[in-house]
């Protein structure tokens, strides 16, 4: 009886062994999300900002291979990324692709090499130090959270759209 039990459970073990995977699937985001929100002041003297769904916003990273425009129709929140090959990167931004001039946003940060898991490998997290911007569409901007990780729920950067918009 015990020998039969042994044989049965040995078969079970073989099934278990056969199901062993080579590499587990990566279940966490591999890229650090740089989340930006745009709000709008109704006037120069207004103190309460309201979320502003931009009609046809364009964010365009300036990369080594050129400018890659990303269009976000009717959105107030945007997910960008920072460069893992440099300690600074530049984005172009306009609230409406057809009407307004482009603003330049340049971010300065420190890269932090981070091991996620054997399934996901390495990625870069960032510590945001500072930024510079022009003011065609942008009235002002602020860093809300310095640490940029793969946490998609954190808002890192807030842009106040110009009251004239």
């Amino acid at each position, binding site marked *: 009886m*015990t020998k039969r039990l042994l044989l049965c459970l040995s078969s079970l*073990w073989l099934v278990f*062994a056969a199901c062993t995977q080579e*590499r587990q699937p990566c279940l966490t985001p591999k890229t650090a999300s740089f989340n930006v929100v745009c709000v709008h002041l109704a006037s120069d003297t207004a103190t309460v900002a309201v979320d502003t769904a931009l009609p046809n916003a364009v964010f365009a990273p300036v990369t080594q291979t050129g400018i*890659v425009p990303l269009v976000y129709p009717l959105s107030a929140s945007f997910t960008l990324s920072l*460069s*893992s090959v440099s300690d600074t990167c530049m984005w172009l931004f306009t609230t409406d692709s057809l009407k307004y001039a482009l603003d330049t946003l340049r971010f300065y940060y420190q890269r932090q090499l981070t091991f996620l898991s054997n399934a996901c*490998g*390495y990625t870069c997290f960032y510590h945001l130090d500072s930024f510079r911007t022009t003011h065609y569409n942008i009235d002002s901007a602020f860093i809300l959270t310095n640490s940029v990780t793969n946490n998609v729920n954190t808002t890192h950067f807030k842009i106040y759209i110009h009251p004239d918009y």
Partner: protein
Amino acid sequence: MSTPRTLRYIFTLIISLGLQGQWQVRGQQTTADTTMVADTVKPKIKLPDRSGRHLTLGIDVAHPIIGQFVSGRQSWEFTADYYLAHDLYLAAVGGFGTSIVGYTDLSYKTTNTFLKAGVNRSLLLRNDSADWNNMFIGFRIGAANISRSGAAYTITDSLWGNSSGTQPGKNFVACWAEIGMGVRVQIAKNVSAGWFMSGRFMLNGKSFKDLAPAYIAGYGRGDKNSAFDFDFFVNYSVNWKRKAQRNTPLTGSSKTVSVEVHRL
């Protein structure tokens, strides 16, 4: 630790403890019944263990076979246990292994040796002093010395471009606790086979945040705080008599022997 895995371990533990409790009750009932017949023996007297010396040496055949199917992973495990007394065994497992990670974005190699020590407690009543077939639960503490080579990595970014680099090699020490259950059956004279399935719980998992080894021989996946594994051992046993048995052969009245058969 994920909830399904936790439940699996708890389930295994409950089954093990349940079986142990069942057999303990059976053993007490048998002793009580026999005591009624042999009224010269008091119930609370702890009877001497009449089993001889029993040393078992074994080798795990499961992981070398798995290594043939899972690329870049090898593990060799050797086991030894020694019968102390009253269904208790002293157990030790040692071995070594290698693991090669060769993904496109991550590659490194680890080697490790390990040693586990603990006890096994038999769950089955034995038929006689020569019966070494058993089902048992075991507890062990394990430690491994791990050496990891330099790790080459690539971060893939379709927007800004890929970046790559190398992380320097590192040595780790891993410690874990292990609880499990197994079966051993004699298949020939002095030769037995059996399996041992166990849940393993890393005790110093925080030291692996910087590139945890993909595989630790003797434990399992190094990037998990818990692991579940099977071993399948082929064993060779060595038996010899205790000193007291060699000097004074066992003799006694039929009443005394009838009790001892159940308490070996």
